[in-house]
């Protein structure tokens, strides 16, 4: 699985998280997310392994930071740049309507 196979905008469906470090994402525009005062993180995947992460900000608006994904094999990717450079994430499941990511 290459970084290019990840695309589109995904939003954290935190209610479905398996555990503290495994996060479930759903398609931002196709999934009916329940209303939530706690804002939801978003991941937008672009060409060339670019990832933009949106975090709920202090005014409840998203603050976005970009990072580059470098494939390490075994569905693992290293984040270069962004807020946590060097962090390694693992794509546990990638389906049209589901993205499950281990973020240790």
């Amino acid at each position, binding site marked *: 699985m290459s970084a290019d196979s990840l695309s589109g905008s995904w*939003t954290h469906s935190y209610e479905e998280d398996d555990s503290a470090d495994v996060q479930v994402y759903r398609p*931002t*525009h196709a999934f009916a*997310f*329940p*209303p*939530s*005062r*706690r*804002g*939801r993180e*978003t991941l937008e995947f672009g060409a060339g392994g670019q990832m933009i992460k949106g975090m709920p*900000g*202090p*005014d*409840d*608006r*998203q603050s976005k930071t970009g990072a580059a994904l470098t494939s390490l094999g075994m569905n693992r990717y290293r984040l270069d740049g962004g807020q946590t450079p060097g962090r390694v994430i693992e794509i546990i499941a990638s389906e049209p309507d589901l993205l499950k990511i281990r973020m240790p």
Partner: protein
Amino acid sequence: MRARDQIEMQAQRYELGELSNERTGVTRIPVIVHVVWNTAPQNVSDAQVTSQIEVLNRDFRRTNPDVNTTPAPFLPLATDSRIEFVLASTDPNGAATNGIERRQTSTAAFTANDAMKSFGTGGLNAWPQNQYLNLWVCPLAGGLLGYAQFPGGPAATDGVVIQQSAFGTVGTATAPFNLGRTATHEIGHWLNLNHIWGDDGTGCSGTDNVADTPNQGGYNTGAPTFPRVSCSNGPNGDMYMNYMDYVDDRAMVMFSAGQVARMQACLDGVRSSIGVAAGANRRSSSPVVDWGPNRIDAFVLGTDRALYHKWWNGSSWGPSVTGYEAMGGICTSVPQAVSWGANRLDVFVTGTDSALYHKWWNGASWGPSVTGYEYMGGACVGDPRIVSWDANRLDVFVLGTNRALYHKWWNGSNWGPSLTGYEYMGGTCVGQPEIVSWGPNRLDVFVIGTDRALHHKWWDGSSWGPSVTGYERLGGVCTSAPHAVAWGPNRLDVFVTGTDGALYHKWWDGASWGPSLTGFERMGGICVGEPEVVSWGPNRLDLFVIGTDSALYHKWWNGAAWGPSLTGYEYMGGVCTSQPRVTSWASNRLDVFVTGTDSALYHKWWNGSAWGPSVTGYEYMGGVISAFKTDFRPEQPAHGIDMPSAQPTPPALPSPVAMGMGAS
């Protein structure tokens, strides 16, 4: 970020007490609601908008009933922010508006990218952010409830955005976000409040820059139970019931004192141009006053001419619905009360010696005693009139036996010119003076002269105009005392009845008198007695008169037109034996009091959507009241509350007695 840094430094100086609030009263902020909808249900109703404004006015004034669910250790911190909100009545071009604009958009759901804030991207443009709070209501994607923009950001996107299903309390509002608290939270941000946990994830190092909110780990959700301890903040734990946490609507109930200091710093600083001082526009004294939201104090005379008092405390009438607190005295004027602050009342009457007497409620007890009075000298004709243009400030006006106007004042520490002395202000007045203050250190006095024309004088902060003893003639042949109100700075509306019994109106718009210096706008009707006028918001007037059938009639100015028409009146039933007395303790709230043929007090109210108990019905409030209207005269029998006929001449005044005013 330099602007944000400066805002933060200023906020911290307020928080530390190095700077104090310049806005000492209540600030009322005009709101423009931009409804941007895709599907028809998202086009939220005017009623849903109104329900949101009502929530804001409760939450920011600490009059939300659920504030009492605040756990005891935090309850003393729950603070009135002294901020109110009102739908804009004037658009940026000066035209009338209801404060709501609407547009259908092809965008199914917006994200937090501000597209709803621009016409070119499917939304509606912001109104000038230095005058209005812009509030966008729209569908938001991803379950987002809303978001804000901190002060100091771009003007074109300044304001708050609220998910339509989390807006207000009716219509599309959906649990658990159906109590309007999303807007309370976002407007908190707009007034420079941070999330209560400090926006540092779940760490204990972040701060909300407010000292009286406990250090807290991460955000809370749902409806936690007390205590919820994090960051070693026991035993009381997180202030999770704060509007700036992430709990459900039903679980957030308060702002802290430190948060209020930050919001007021924002209003004095970066948002200094917005809002009007709601508390600065003071009416003349009345037997019925409110010192705060959901509070009413009514003063009447009984058949023994003693003073009696009853009050509404937000949940019930004291001492009972039909009961009264006896306050002593033998009074010869209608009691006149004003309030210069929360839980403060000053009441003035004249005694059988025609001298002025004063008593006051200081929040804890009556001074000089429950049934005692402070003697203030003078020989007064008719009712004293009092206005307070600031905290701990009183200006008292009376007519002397020579029918000239006299003035005395309380400056916070002393009575001027002396406890029992008066300043002579000239004139020969018939009827009662009316005083209104449209701002700090500003007084406008209206009297009727012996020519029955309306006359005006004013205090501009440094001197009396046109002179200490002079008056500006404003024309007319008046058959009632003038009644005036100021709905905004440098705005005056004056009402009198004419020789045909009709109501007449003139106004000062800040530059000139309308319709002309000596002209009046005729407003129809055949009025018995004196009109009553109140204003519950900018560019809003409500008028009440008694008709020849002794029923109550109502008309109103909504910012654009007179309702039900320029010369028409809404019939409100009743057989009234006093002039109506009306007070408004909040936007879109009216409380009307009259006496009936049984001399008991009767009450009706407008709650923002309907008249209670009904359009023509009244709540019985007991008592046998001998004085509740302006023209009570001691030589009349105790039943002298019979309505005056619509006689074209002003009521006769008591003949002068030898003793002049105390100024001599």
